[in-house]
C-alpha cells in the first residue's frame, strides 16, 4: 500500500516536472522572472555613479556664489545658466526632463553671508516625481555641507580677527590715552565690531544657508501627482493581461480562424485595440473620480487627455497582443505579462528615484514604455505640455510589428 502510494506520489511529481521541462516557455519564464526581477532590483539599490543634472542660475555672481557652484559640482552634473529668464528656463527644462533639478542663487547672497545673516538658495524640482521629491532635499543638503563648513570656517576666522581687532584697539586706546580723538576712533571701531557680533543670528550659526524648495507643479496637494503613476501602472497591468489572454482565447476557440477565412485581420486588430482603449478610458475615469474625491484638482485639456488615453491604451494593448501571439496558453501569457510588468514597475521611478539609479538602469527605463506613459500623463495633466511625437511614433511602430506578427503567427 505504501509502495503504491509512493509510486503515485512520484508519478504526479514526475508529471509536473516533465511538463515543466517539455513546455519550454513555462520553464524559461519560471526561471527568467526571478532572474530578471532580481537583477533589476539589485541595479535599483546599487550605489550610482550617475550624476543628477542640475541647472544653476547665479544672480549673485560673486566669489561666494562661485564657491557654492564649485561645491555643488562635486555631487551634481552642474550647468550654469545665464540671462534674465534664467529661472523660467530652469523650470521648463525640468518639465521637459532635460534636467532633474534647478538651483537659483539670489542677488545679495554673499552680502547676507558677509553680514553673518542666514541666507538661502532656491531649489526647483519636479514634485510630480514622487520618489525623486523625497530624495532631493536630502541630496541638496548633503551637497551643501562642505560649503556650509567653508562658510562657518570663514566666520570663525572672521570672529577671531574681530576679537584680535578689539584687543588691538583696546591696547592702543590704553597706550594713547592722552589723545582723545584717537581713543574715540578706536572705541567706535570696537563698537562697530561688537554690534556686528551682537547682530549675528543663532540661525546663521546653526545653518548659514537654507534651501527654499520650489516645486514646478503648483498643485493643491502631493496626492494629486499620484495619478501619474498609479494610472499608467494599473492600465498596463490590466490591459497587458486582458489583451494577451483575449488573443489566446480567440486562438483557442478558433475564432481567429473564422476571422481569417472571412476578412483580413486588420479590422480584427483595430477592433481589439479600440476595445482596450475604451477599457483604459474607463480605468482612467474610475481612478480620476477617486483622486477627485480625495481633493485633487487637475486641468482638463480634453483633446490632450483623450489622445493620452488612446496612446496608452494602444501601446499597452499592442504589447499584450504580441504577448498573446508568442504565448501558447493563458498561463504563459500571464507569466509573460508579469515578466514585462515587473521590470517596468521597478524602473518606472515610483518606488525608487530613477535619477539615483545606475546609468544602465536609467537607460533601460528610458526605452521602456511605462516611463514614457508616466511622463505623458504628467505632461498632459500637470504641465499642459501636450504629447511628444516620440510616443506616437512608438505606437505606430508597435502597431506595424503587431500586425505583421498577427498575420504571420496567428493560425
Amino acid at each position: 500500500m505504501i509502495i503504491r502510494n509512493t509510486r503515485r506520489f512520484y508519478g504526479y511529481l514526475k508529471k509536473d516536472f516533465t511538463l515543466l521541462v517539455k513546455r519550454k516557455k513555462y520553464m524559461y519564464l519560471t526561471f527568467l522572472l526571478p532572474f530578471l526581477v532580481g537583477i533589476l532590483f539589485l541595479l535599483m539599490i546599487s550605489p550610482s555613479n550617475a550624476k543628477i543634472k542640475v541647472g544653476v542660475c547665479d544672480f549673485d555672481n560673486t566669489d561666494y556664489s562661485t564657491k557654492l557652484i564649485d561645491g555643488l559640482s562635486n555631487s551634481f552634473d552642474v550647468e550654469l545658466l545665464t540671462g534674465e529668464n534664467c529661472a523660467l528656463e530652469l523650470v521648463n527644462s525640468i518639465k521637459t526632463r532635460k534636467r532633474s533639478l534647478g538651483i537659483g542663487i539670489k542677488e545679495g547672497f554673499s552680502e547676507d553671508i558677509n553680514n553673518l545673516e542666514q541666507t538661502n538658495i532656491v531649489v526647483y524640482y519636479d514634485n510630480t516625481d514622487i520618489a525623486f521629491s523625497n530624495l532631493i532635499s536630502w541630496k541638496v543638503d548633503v551637497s551643501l555641507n562642505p560649503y556650509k563648513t567653508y562658510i562657518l570656517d570663514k566666520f570663525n576666522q572672521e570672529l577671531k580677527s574681530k576679537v584680535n581687532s578689539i584687543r588691538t584697539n583696546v591696547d592702543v586706546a590704553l597706550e594713547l590715552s592722552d589723545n582723545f580723538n584717537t581713543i574715540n576712533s578706536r572705541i567706535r571701531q570696537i563698537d562697530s565690531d561688537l554690534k556686528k557680533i551682537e547682530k549675528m543670528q543663532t540661525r546663521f550659526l546653526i545653518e548659514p544657508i537654507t534651501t527654499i524648495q520650489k516645486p514646478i507643479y503648483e498643485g493643491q496637494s502631493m496626492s494629486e501627482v499620484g495619478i501619474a503613476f498609479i494610472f499608467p501602472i494599473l492600465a498596463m497591468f490590466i490591459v497587458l493581461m486582458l489583451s494577451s489572454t483575449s488573443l489566446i482565447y480567440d486562438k483557442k476557440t478558433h475564432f481567429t480562424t473564422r476571422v481569417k477565412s472571412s476578412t483580413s485581420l486588420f479590422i480584427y486588430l483595430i477592433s481589439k485595440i479600440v476595445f482596450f482603449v475604451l477599457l483604459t478610458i474607463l480605468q482612467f475615469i474610475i481612478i480620476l473620480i477617486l483622486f477627485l474625491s480625495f481633493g485633487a484638482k487637475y486641468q482638463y485639456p480634453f483633446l490632450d487627455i483623450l489622445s493620452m488615453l488612446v496612446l496608452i491604451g494602444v501601446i499597452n494593448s499592442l504589447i499584450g497582443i504580441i504577448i498573446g501571439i508568442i504565448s501558447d496558453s493563458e498561463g504563459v501569457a500571464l507569466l509573460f505579462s508579469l515578466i514585462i510588468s515587473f521590470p517596468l514597475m521597478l524602473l518606472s521611478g515610483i518606488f525608487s528615484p530613477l535619477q539615483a539609479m545606475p546609468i544602465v538602469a536609467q537607460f533601460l527605463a528610458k526605452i521602456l514604455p511605462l516611463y514614457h506613459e508616466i511622463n505623458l500623463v504628467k505632461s498632459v495633466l500637470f504641465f499642459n505640455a501636450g504629447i511628444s511625437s516620440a510616443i506616437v511614433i512608438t505606437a505606430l511602430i508597435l502597431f506595424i510589428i503587431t500586425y505583421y506578427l498577427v498575420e504571420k503567427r496567428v493560425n
Partner: protein
Amino acid sequence: MIKKGFFVINIMIQKIKGIFNNIHLKKPLFAHSVKYAYGDQQVLKNITLGIKEGKITSIIGKSGSGKSTFLKLIAGIISNKYDGKILIFGKSRFFKKSKLGFVSQDLAFIPDLSILDNIKICGLNYGISEERAVKKAKELMKLLRLEEKLEKKPTNLSGGQKVRLHIILSLLHNPRIIVMDEPFVGLDFSNRRLLWHFIESMKKSRKSIVLTSHLLTETQEHADKLVILKDGKIFFNGNLESLKNKLKIKFIFEVRFSYLSASNLKEIKKYCDYREIDILEKYQNFMMFGIRSTKTRSALINLLEKLKLIYQEVGFREPNLDEIFLKA
C-alpha cells in the same frame, strides 16, 4: 510566308489562352501551380485544380499529404507567401472571401456565449446584419436538425450538435463555395448521414463543395470528383471508375492462412510482382490482394495450392475507395 504563319499561330495561342482564362473565370475555385513550404519542407508541390459549380469535390490523401494545408491556403487561413495562384470566381481570394465558407477541422465558436450571440457575432464577422444571420441560422438549423434553444451555451450541446453548430456558423453568409476540412470527425453514423444529406442539399442549390475526409467509402457515394494528394502532389483527379482503371484494381481477394512462413511469403510476393498483383494489406496471416480479373484470382489460388498452404478465402468482391486508396 513563314512570318505570316508565326503571326497566325501567335493569334491562335492568344485566343486559346483567352478561352483558358475565361474557363478559369467561370470556375468558382481555381488553383494554379500552387506550391507551399513549411520552412524547408515542401508541403504542396505544383497543385493545379479547378472546382466546378454545384459539384462535390473530395480531396483525400494520407495524413501529411497536404490536404489541410491546401484547404487552409484556399480559405486564407495560411497567409504566408506561397507560389502560384488561387482564384475565386477569377479573382484573388482576398477580394472574394465572402464567396467562401470555411468549415475548419477544429470547432470554432465562443463557448462562454449563447448560441444566439455566437450566431450574431459570426454573422457580423461575415459582414451581414444580426437579423439576417439569425434568419439564415434558423434555416440551416432546420436543415441540420439542430432544434436547440438559442439561449443555450454551445458547451451544453452534444458532440454531434457542436459540429452542426460549427457548420451553421461557418455558412451564415450563404457562401457559393463551401470548403470543409474533415467535417465528419467525431460524428456517429446517423450524424454523418445527416451531414451528407445537408451537403447534397447544398449541392442542389448550386453550391460548390470541397471537402477532405478519411471516410472514403462514404465519400465515394457522394463525391462527384476525387482528388488524391500524395506527398504534396495530385496523384489522381477524376471519378471512382477512372481511379479503378488507373490503379488497375477490379477485384479484391482476401485470404487468411493457418500459417504463413517467411519463405512462402517471399514466394507469394515474387509471384505477385510477376503477375502485377497488388498486395494491398498484410497483417499476420491475413493478406489482401488487388487483382485485375477473375483469371488472376485462379492463378493466385493455383499458386497457394502449389505451395500447399492451408487458407480460408475471406472475400472476393469489387473494391471500395478505402481499398483502392491503400494502393494510392
